[in-house]
């Protein structure tokens, strides 16, 4: 099950500069584990020690913020697109 993951500029040092990588997982948590296996250290930038998403990291599955769909338990299917972005100000 291949899921495309878009990586923000500030985390591309973990992906050898790649903007987009592929990973597998039936939930966001397992996807992040797979990402970390392929790109060691990435998980530590996304998930805090207590096992929740980092406050300043937003993750979207098909453009929907995962904090409203079950956070790390959000389910994934083949062909889903995951986007990771740092939280920035608007207004």
């Amino acid at each position, binding site marked *: 099950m291949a899921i495309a993951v878009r990586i*923000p*500029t*500030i*985390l591309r040092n973990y992906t050898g500069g790649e903007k987009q990588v592929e990973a597998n997982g039936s939930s966001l948590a397992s996807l992040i584990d797979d990402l970390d296996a392929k790109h060691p250290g990435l998980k530590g*930038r996304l998930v805090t020690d207590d096992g929740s998403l*980092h*406050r*300043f*990291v*937003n993750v*979207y599955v098909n*453009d*929907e*913020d995962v*904090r*409203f*769909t079950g956070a790390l338990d959000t389910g994934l299917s083949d062909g889903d697109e995951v*986007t990771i*972005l*740092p*939280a*920035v*100000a*608007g*207004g």
Partner: protein
Amino acid sequence: MRYRSLVEAVGDTPLVGLPTLSPSDDVRLWAKLEDRNPTGSVKDRAAIWMIRAAERDGRLRPGATILEPTSGNTGISLAMVAQLHGYELICVMPENTSIERRQLLEMYGAKIILSPAAGGSNQAVAMAKELAEEHPDWVMLYQYGNPANAMAHYETTGPEILRDMPTITHFVAGLGTTGTLMGTGRFLREHVPGVQIVAAEPRYGELVYGLRNVEEGFVPELYDPSVLTSRYSVGAKDAVRRTRQLVETEGIFAGISTGAILHAALGVAEKAAGAGQQADVVLLVADGGWKYLSTGAYGGTLEDAENALEGQLWA
């Protein structure tokens, strides 16, 4: 309608149906036209409420200097009120915002300090906070953390929508300072059981997310995620496509952030229609398209427009 002055003419904006874009007679879209405010954007409500609150508690006195980080609309609203009430205004604004916004600010007599494009509004916020420390006599209203911002919408936008659309099922608005969604959302949740509060967040080009590290990220102090039901990220291409669709099908000439809001609204409307539900979806038109004509969003192909917006703060 008759008002004592322009400031008094804030709010009470029209709610108009979108019969062509609505999926069916059971699932209807309604647009709250916030471009019909004194300076042409929803931010007039927040700016006027923040200034009135600061005047009431004595922080703002005649001749005072107001400092504010803003990517445009809040600055323009504050500049108008500041001019009428006799305050100086200094705006810290990212350099990658449209030229029209700068022209309007200068016309109203505001001073502009440009912050670097990389890092977007985060840099403007950081720079304004530094300036506020260096100049303790300046008054920073700070739209990202000022309760009066959300209160403006709790006291006006929310009640107006409920008055005009008691059968509302969804409210969709843009997420920037989060003030509109927090204030309107809290009011509607208190009065309409099961109402869905949906955020549409602009997804900019990469330059705007050019922080040095994740710890430099920013979440507005006003933000309380428990007010929202869902939150969507909308890129420039979808936002421009919907902005053009809105003017072509319903005659509403709106700014680009409204295209992002319409995109999210159509998504929830189609979901409701697919589930056989009745829905009245109210979406907020944040401003008109005038200030964005120079960005290239309204002409040429979608790809041209998307490329033109790359690196710009278009919402």
